[in-house]
C-alpha cells in the first residue's frame, strides 16, 4: 500500500518519538484533516500543537501539500494522494 509522508519540523520531532517523517498508508486520497487525525492518534501532544480543540489549524502553523500551503487550497479539507509529500512548517511570525 503506498504511503503519504509528512515531514515534521525539528522542534516537533520529540513529540513524535524523535521521528522526522511520519508515514500513513493509504489506498486513496485523504483529506489533510483525516491524515492529521491518523498520524497524531499515537501522539496527542503533537496533535494539540498543530490544531486547537475545535480542530482548527493553529494560526502560525503552515501545512504544504506538494508545495502549496493548504490555506490557499481547501484548508484541512485539501486532499492528499498517495506518493505526495506533506510539509509542516512553522511560519516566520514572532519576535
Amino acid at each position, binding site marked *: 500500500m503506498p504511503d503519504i509522508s509528512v515531514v515534521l519540523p525539528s522542534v516537533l520531532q520529540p513529540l513524535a518519538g524523535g521521528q522526522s517523517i511520519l508515514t500513513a498508508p493509504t489506498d486513496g486520497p485523504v483529506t489533510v484533516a483525516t491524515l492529521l487525525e491518523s498520524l497524531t492518534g499515537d501522539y496527542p501532544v503533537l496533535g494539540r500543537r498543530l490544531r486547537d*480543540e475545535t480542530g482548527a489549524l*493553529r494560526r502560525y502553523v503552515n501545512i504544504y501539500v506538494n508545495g502549496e500551503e493548504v490555506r490557499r487550497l481547501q484548508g484541512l479539507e485539501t486532499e492528499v494522494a498517495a506518493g505526495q509529500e506533506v510539509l509542516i512548517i512553522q511560519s516566520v511570525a514572532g519576535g
Partner: protein
Amino acid sequence: MGCMATAASFVLAIGTKKGLWLATSQDRKQWSFSGPHFLMSEIPSIGIDTRNGRTRIMVGVRSEHWGPTVAHSDDLGATWTEPEQGAITFPEDTGAALERIWQIYPDAESRPGVVWAGAEPISVWKSTDGGEHFELNRGLWDHPHRSEWGAGYGGAAAHSIVVNPVGDNVHIAMSTGGVYRSLDGGTSWEPRNAGISAYFMPDPNPEFGQCVHKIAADAAVEGRLYAQNHHGVYRTDDNGEHWESIAEGLPADFGFVMLTHPRREGTAWVVPLKADGERIPPEGKLAVHRTDDAGATWKRLDSGLPASEYNSVLRDAAAVDSAEPAGVYFGTRGGAVYASADEGETFTEVASHLPDVLCVRAAIIRGTARPVPETVAARGA
C-alpha cells in the same frame, strides 16, 4: 549557593515572554538559577503547590506557533509533565478554543488537590487532581452577561481567582467585566462592583464591565478584599457588596498589581503606574507602596530599586511568599526581578535582562530540597 537545604528553602519562579526561570535560595538574598525552561514560549501563569508534602510547580505555557498548554514539575524543573490530552481544553459543545492560561491558583490546605485556573477566553476552571486535568466552570461560561464582557488590551480573560479557605466563597476578576462572586463554590456567579469606577464607559458605575486588574483577599479579615482597578484602588469589607477608594496617598491610582500579606490584617502592596497616557512608574521612579492599615495610609518603598525605571510591572509579575517576615517579589517588562526578604523595606535585584516578566511566584519549600542547577545565562546580571 549550591548546597543542600536542610530545613527550609525558597523557590522563585519567573515566567517571561520567552521562557521560565527558576531559582532557589536559603536566605532570599542569594539565588541559584536554572533556565530557560520552555524557551520561546511565554509563561503567563505559575502556581506553586506545596500541599501533599511535595512542591509542584504548574505553569501555563503559550507558544505563538504551537498554542497554549499546562505543564507541571514535581522536581523543581528537572523534568516536566504535560498531560497528553491537555490539562485545559474546552469541551466540544462550547465551540471555543483555549487561547492563554492567565492564572493557576492552588486552593487552601483544607482542599488538597484542588487547583483553580483562569483563562482566555474568559473562563474559570477547577482541577481536583493537583492540576493535571481541569473542568470548565459552567456557571460562569453560561452566564447571561458573557456576551457583554469585553477584552482589555491583553485579551479577554479571567485573571484573578480568590477562594475563601474555609467556605464556598469565590471571587474572580476579569478584564473587562469586573468582579464576580460565587457563594456556592462556583456554581453561580453575580457581579460585585458597586463603587468601582468604569470611567471609560458611558455609565461610569455599571453593574459590571469594570476593568479590574487584580484582586486579593485580606488573610485575617473575613470579607475584606482589595482591588487594583484600571484607575482606582479599592477595598471592600463586606465581601464585595460595596467597594470604597483607598487610593489617597498613592502617587497614582493606576497599576496592575495587588498583593496581600499571607497572615497579617490590613497589609497590602501595590506598584503604582502613571496612566492612561503614560504607563510607566510616576516620573520614572519605580516604587512599591505598602499599607499596613487597610489602605488608610501608604508607605513608599524603593530601597534597592533603580533610580529610574520606565518599564511597567504586570498584574501577575508580583508575589509574596508565606515566610515571616513575608518576602515580596516582582519583575518588570524590562526583565529585571527584585526580591525583598523584609516585606518590601529593602529590595535586591536578583535577575536582570530577562525577557518581559509576565508572572512571578515564590514559596517556601519544606524539608530537604536540592537547589536547581545553576546556569550562568539565567542570572542576567
